């Protein structure tokens, strides 16, 4: 049996499993337009908006509004590409699975490296944001808060971010127990998030001062783009709509509508929140402000209660977001482990709890360390670059696949091909370019490490490789 060449190894494509029309497919749900839109809104709102302003405004100035729109447009373009890729592979999964089934093993590993950032690191980022609001809440309700040493990462003047670690451990416990977030919980969470943000906007506008917008873009267009890079983080989750595509009713029509509607809703909420915040407070005041949305309201009203309301909302919704993203991370590693692309320990399911306990413990421990010692802006940027890179690969994949397999049946096709994938690629690259060099540097090292790992371990452990070899032996015998 001839050993496959390196090229064959790196680009071997996972065949799409053939699903029979057994009663098993009765599990398939059909999601209508409105719930599909809500998945997008629910998955997206809440990731970053509660704390991203204090990171992005000092960089972009009031022009952060433009950053929001740019980030939103790029996220939307990529999400459309994502939808086409999801629709051309009749398996459901993350972009890792899609890349494996279309581009091959090596690109799939590259995407996986990005996804580990998109999920793992964003869990850490979100948890750090949670810590700010918990402290605010403690202060407002009990007049005391945790000492600085225990609430901030070393770079931000503390020793360890304890609340963030506690949050991650709590979520890990829930996941080990087999926590399930039902459709109802999801809806309740969406309502809480939107209600809290709506409350912020309503109160925030009472403190409107147009003078705050006088120096609209103090740092020019570069500032706006760097801001967009950080903000991109808060659009993570929009791709959820695309992966739900194979369960959507009439995806050809509903998928783009749901994506765009979710995008418009989310972007509008973000822009309104940014407008309200900027109208209420000078751009310079955002720098280093923790539990930003609470602090702004307290400033306007001169009383604690609006800040408390926002803090409660933030604590609840960030908790649910952390749970969702941590969950996602464990499941991606599970899928990779099943393919032989991650250590076997990630696919062990504990018989008693019926959950991947070790997987969850390892992931939470790593994420907890990240959340405990790294500053939020770095975590947010790492998430952004990971997501952008994953989107970049997805957009390229759409073009590659259209050329390589033009006749493949796709449940959804990107409109105005090739304009949209190309714009998406340009947009992703453009935002990445303006991220801080340290972010790009760490990202490259990280991806390289993952690929080195693949080269020496994953490539040999590949379950697909064994299956292909077995199939070949079968052919030979026949």
């Amino acid at each position, binding site marked *: 049996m001839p050993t496959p060449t390196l090229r064959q190894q790196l680009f071997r494509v996972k065949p799409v499993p053939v699903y029979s029309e057994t009663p098993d497919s009765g599990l398939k*749900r059909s999601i209508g337009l409105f719930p599909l839109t809500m998945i997008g809104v*629910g998955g997206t709102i809440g990731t970053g908006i509660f704390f991203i302003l204090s990171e992005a405004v000092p960089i972009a100035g009031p022009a952060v509004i433009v950053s929001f729109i740019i980030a939103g447009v790029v996220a939307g373009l990529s999400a459309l590409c994502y939808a086409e890729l999801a629709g051309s592979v009749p398996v459901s999964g993350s972009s890792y699975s899609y890349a494996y089934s279309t581009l091959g093993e090596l690109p799939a590993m590259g995407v996986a490296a990005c996804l580990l950032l998109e999920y793992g690191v964003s869990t850490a980022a979100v948890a750090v944001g949670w810590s700010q609001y918990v402290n605010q809440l403690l202060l407002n309700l009990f007049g005391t808060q945790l000492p600085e040493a225990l609430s901030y990462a070393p770079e931000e003047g503390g020793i360890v971010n304890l609340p963030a670690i506690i949050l991650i451990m709590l979520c890990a416990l829930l996941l080990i127990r087999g926590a399930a977030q039902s*459709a109802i919980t999801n809806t309740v969470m969406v309502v809480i998030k939107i209600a809290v943000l709506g409350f912020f906007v309503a109160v925030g506008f009472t403190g409107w001062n147009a003078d705050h917008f006088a120096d609209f873009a103090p740092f020019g267009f570069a500032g706006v783009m760097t801001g967009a890079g950080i903000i991109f983080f808060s659009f993570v989750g929009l791709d959820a709509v695309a992966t739900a595509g194979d369960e959507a009713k009439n995806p050809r029509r509903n998928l783009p509508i749901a994506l765009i509607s979710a995008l418009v809703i989310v972007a509008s909420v973000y822009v309104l929140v940014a407008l309200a915040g900027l109208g209420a407070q000078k751009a310079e005041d955002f720098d280093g402000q923790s539990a930003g949305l609470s602090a702004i309201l307290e400033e306007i009203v001169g009383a604690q209660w609006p800040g408390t309301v926002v803090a409660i909302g933030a604590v609840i919704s960030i908790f649910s977001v952390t749970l*969702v993203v941590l969950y996602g991370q464990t*499941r991606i590693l599970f899928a990779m482990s*099943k393919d032989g692309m991650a250590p076997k320990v990630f696919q062990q399911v504990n018989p008693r709890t019926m*959950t*991947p306990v070790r997987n969850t413990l390892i992931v939470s421990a790593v994420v907890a360390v990240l959340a405990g010692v790294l500053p939020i802006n770095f975590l947010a940027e790492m998430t952004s670059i990971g997501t952008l890179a994953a989107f970049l690969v997805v957009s390229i994949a759409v073009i590659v696949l259209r050329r390589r397999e033009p006749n493949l049946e796709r449940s959804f096709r990107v409109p105005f091909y090739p304009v949209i994938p190309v714009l998406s690629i340009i947009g992703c690259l453009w935002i990445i370019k303006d991220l801080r060099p340290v972010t790009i540097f760490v990202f490259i090292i990280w991806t390289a490490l993952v690929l080195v790992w693949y080269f020496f371990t994953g490539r040999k452990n590949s379950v697909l490789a064994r299956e292909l070899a077995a199939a070949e032996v079968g052919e030979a015998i026949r």
Partner: protein
Amino acid sequence: MSIVVGVVPGRDPRPPVRLGALMARSYGRRLVLVSIISRPWGSGGSGVDAEYLRYRESETARCLEAAATMVPDGIAVEQLSREAHSPHSGLRRVCREIGAHRLVLGSSEDAPVGRIRLGGVSTGLLHSATLPVALAPRGFDAADSERITRISAAFNGTGTSARLVLGAATVASAAGTQLRIVAFTPRQGRATTGLEAGLGADIEDEIVEQWEAEIQQRTQKLITEISEREPTPTRTEAVIGSGETWDEAVADVAWVPGEVLMIGSRTLGALTRLSLGSRAAKILKNAPVPVVLVPHRAGETYAAAADSAR
């Protein structure tokens, strides 16, 4: 060693008595019908209390008498009434005194017909009993000459659970009946939105598949171990019940008349039950056959029977 059946005046004694008889016949034991008269605190000396107590005594005697008529011929049966501060402490003491093999109780009245719900007495006993407690579903009955046809043993993959399955194998061998190892995979709470967003809906199915593979491997090991012992159950098999909910998962495995289900109730503690409900509690709630709960404190003895059979 005998099968103790707890009967309560005012409650239909038929289900626990018929289940007790079924077990007595299958295990070759005698049946002891026990009714506990709750003694008022401070052992009242006043006339009113004494009169009430006499009324209770006569009620209890009538109830035991009625229960005795439900025992089919050919089974040695005894009646016993005791005074105690609470029914469950009384039953516990009687069981200890006569060295009971099993304690049989009826289901709470709010159970749907054919299902089991724990009542006050059974809940109390679960925490303190040192012997397996059999629970008859509401409205349960068995034919006069029926024997236990199959013992199903719930298995959750843990070592404790495996030991209890081996215990059940010993019981099944001794009774000359079949053994079935059952595991349940409810896919309950499979997120429809939210959690799995961005990952595809199939990921939880894969987790369940992985779990099933793991369980199958462990059950296979158990089956081999059981087959190497003497005597063996008349037949040993394993089955996994799956479904969207616990209800469906339990209904997914076929149940035959004369079957009993053994569940280890290590995690059936008050806290678990009050908060989220343990697996054992969920299986118990949906089981359509009599359930033998092996409380934590009885587990060692139950499993030790397997060791001595080796």
